[in-house]
């Protein structure tokens, strides 16, 4: 195993430009899971980003929040103005693992790891986050809701690093995060939901019910149109269009759909006049 420790972003980008199979490392909380058993991966090159000061920042500027690629859950929980401006980020961060993971795990790592069950991704997506990618060839911005192309597939090229996550600062009158795990803490989501409403419209994002975290556009349309909803069952046609849950080790497709409908209904009933 070779671990490179570049001190600047420039160095890091040079390194991976020459070694497309090199693996970026942030908090390593995904990368090291079951590490001893994954002997085949021990021979690869790893690029440890943790010494790159430029990637650590969290900044509020020009009407947006900018999370550096090394920003952790802990950083967000403890940053000023976060609870008022981006309560969903704080809510999701507190639901990630336990404090050890919150202190090491990064939002960028959560995005690139591309788990359909991620907790950080749904809230970022509900806030219209944009992924900022950089390579030696230049910068590129990809809206998070278009970042995933399939199960564990992203638009990131091997020579690109995520350098930042940009999130527009908007006033939201609805902001809900739901995580249904197998237990009350330290669990992977069986169903995850982030719901937000602002001047930009409705955002409904679901996790663990499709090959990627994804926007539920049929539900969003139903909310925008004010289609009457008299109970959770009325949401099922839209849910069928939006997501494709499966039976796996952690839950069943039927459970995921039912719970998704009930949570949506329950969360929106008080705030959405069309829900009765």
């Amino acid at each position, binding site marked *: 195993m070779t671990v490179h420790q570049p001190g600047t972003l420039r160095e890091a980008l040079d390194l991976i430009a020459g070694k497309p199979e090199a693996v970026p490392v942030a908090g390593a909380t995904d990368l090291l*899971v*079951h590490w*001893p*058993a994954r*002997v085949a991966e*021990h021979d690869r090159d790893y690029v440890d980003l943790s010494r790159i000061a430029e990637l650590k920042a969290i900044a509020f500027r020009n009407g947006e929040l900018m999370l550096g690629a090394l920003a952790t859950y802990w950083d967000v929980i403890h940053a000023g103005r976060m609870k008022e401006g981006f309560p969903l980020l704080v809510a999701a961060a507190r639901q990630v693992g336990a404090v050890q993971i919150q202190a090491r795990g990064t939002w960028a790592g959560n995005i690139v790891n591309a788990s359909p069950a991620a907790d950080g991704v749904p809230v970022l997506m509900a806030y219209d986050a944009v992924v900022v990618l950089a390579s030696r060839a230049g910068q590129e911005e990809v809206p998070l809701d278009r970042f995933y192309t399939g199960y564990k597939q992203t638009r990131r090229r091997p020579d690109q690093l995520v350098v930042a996550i940009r999130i527009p600062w908007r006033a939201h009158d609805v902001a809900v995060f739901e995580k*249904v795990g*197998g*237990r*009350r*803490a*330290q*669990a*992977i989501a069986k*169903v995850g939901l982030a719901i937000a409403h602002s001047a930009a419209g409705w955002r409904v994002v679901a996790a663990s019910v499709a090959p990627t975290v994804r926007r539920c556009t049929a539900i969003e349309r139903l909310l925008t149109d004010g289609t009457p909803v008299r109970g959770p069952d009325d949401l099922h046609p839209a849910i069928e269009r939006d997501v494709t849950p499966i039976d796996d*080790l*952690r*839950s*069943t497709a*039927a*459970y995921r759909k*039912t*719970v998704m409908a*009930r*949570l949506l209904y*329950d969360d929106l009933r008080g705030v959405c006049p069309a829900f009765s």
Partner: protein
Amino acid sequence: MHRREGLAKLTGRERYVDDLPLDDFLWGATVRSPASRGRVTAVRFGRGIDWSQFVVVDSQDLPGPNEILLIERDQPVLAAGYVRHVHEPVLLLAHRDRVALRRAVAAVTIEVAPEPAALDFRVPPRPEQIQYGADNVLKHLRIEKGDVERALATAPVVVEGVYETGAQEHVYLEPQGMIAHMDGDVLVVRGSMQCPYYVVKALTHALNRDEQHVRVVQTPTGGGFGGKEEYPSTIALHAALLALKSGRPVKLVYDRTEDMAATTKRHPARVRHRTGVTRDGKLVAQDIEVVMDGGAYVTLSPVVLSRGIIHAAGPYACEHVRIDGRAMFTNAVPFGAFRGFGAPQTHFAGERHMDVVAHRLGIDPAELRRRNLLRDGERTATGQVVNDGTDRVAVLERALALADYDKKRAANKAGGTTRRGIGIATFHHGAGFTGSGEVMLSSRVDVAGLPDGRIEVLSANIEMGQGTITVFTALAAARLGLTPDDVVVAEADTARVPNSGPTVASRTSMVVGRLVERACDDLRRRVNTGGRGKGEGLKRAIMDWHRAHPGGRLVGSATYERPPGIAWDDHTYTGDAYGAFAWAAYIAEVEVDLRTYTTRVTDFVAVQEIGKVLHETFARGQVQGGVAQGIGWALLEDCKWQDGAMANAQLTNYLIPTTEDLPPIRVAFLENPYPHGAQGAKGLGELPIDGPAPAVLNAVADALGVEPTTIPLTPERLMEIAERGARNAEQRRQ
């Protein structure tokens, strides 16, 4: 008294087997079967690895019979050309580098010509699936009292039910592991274990050595829960085979995944009840059928089944009882000892069924239990007359009062999207080995007087977090009027300690603790203290003895004696199954979220009569830990099976409760000293795992008005039950 080894554990200084310093050793690893049943047609060693650098052991390398000696001899140390379950050990490898070893294990291919596997213990095997006897029944046992069929035929009400419990993984903090090396011509094995002499027995048998040439030392053990009762013998044999072949020390330590995948779990069970009752709720007949999944080898299934059926009728008086039990062979990874040892499965069924009966009769579940709990002078299912002076109804009343049961039961269950409920379980647990077991064990404890006047307790009973060292220290100190610092508890090293039996069956404090007391008495007799019987006088007498006998060993000793008036007939399965029972009433309160069907236990009351509380903190710890483990078994812990092996052998996907998932656990003890237990104590270790699952499910039944019958009651399962209930109600309305 503080936990004797507490500081070392608290500060991380305690050394578990994986932490022990070891020079010039090899790592050992196990290559396992990929198939659930079949002939091994080829073992291929992959290219790109210099196999001459590896020590390789297979079944041909055994110096003695290829058998892990336990109740039966059916289980091979290493599969000899035929496998019966996924993960069955086939080959052992050793190498100085652990990563190289992992690569090597992955590079071995074991090819198996598959044969039809038996994978569901609940359905009768097809002829081609039969692999044990004529019917795959590993053990069949039966208890009969009175005339069940007649009583059922005339009973005013008969209530039936079928209940199922899943497997459970022990999740001890420290995974299993062993070190083996030669010390001259003595084979030394050290490791994490509950039963040093079981390991000695297994080693001497399969390695063809006598006891003088085998020494087993228990290392500080990070939890066991029964998982380190029989399985350590296998790892000890494997490490020993590699050490014998290589001539080097070998360390064989499982990681969590291997430990969860390959070692034993609690036996899954299905229990059918057919119960006759009068309209006012008096039990008149109990017809109970217990089936357990034994897995691919006999291991301890016969005795797990035995304890299971003996507890199956519950702590109730009933004149006509029939309990039929079978442990089935399947091609699953063998199931084994787990805290409770069969009783949690049958108590779950029995206590859940009591509530079903109560609902049918329209009687409050607490009242139904009041009417049926054993009174002194009445007989259990095996005909054991219970006459210990404990008021079992009072145990229940205490729990009801602490839980504020009547008010909670009557309260409104609904609140927005949640429903609340409260549930009871009353149950018992027999401590010590069943029937004649303790007599057959013939345990011995020594207490030595040391030249400096201190004393040393020598037993094979081990500390695994439950407090053995501290409790033995306290018992000996109290018996002899010494301070705790005057008492040393010997390391469980079979070269030094007598065989005081295994550290299982809730027997250590009650049975072995009593031997510690008696050995102390014997020591006093031997030093001939005259008037200076205890304390400083005794210390001086011990020192005097050593001055008079330089180099001599001053040892008091005690061997188990059957308490008077106890009789058991193994043939008819009648008589006194246990010297003593502990009695308990547990009450759970739950809140079910109707959106997600998650069940949260919001309050828990655990009241038990255990003879005598020897150490308040430890006793509480046993109860709280057992309740936590029981709640996990009831709601969360779900072994997913694939070809008889666990598909979710990781803590990411096999979830045990966190503190967030647990309620306050309110513990109360009642004491009614048992004359043959240490200071009056009865066994406590297992009791607390018997009650939580039925109490929690009874609370869910109360909350939702459904009758769940299977655990774990995952949200997915509860959703199905509740939706089915709602659909049926809908159909009835139409």
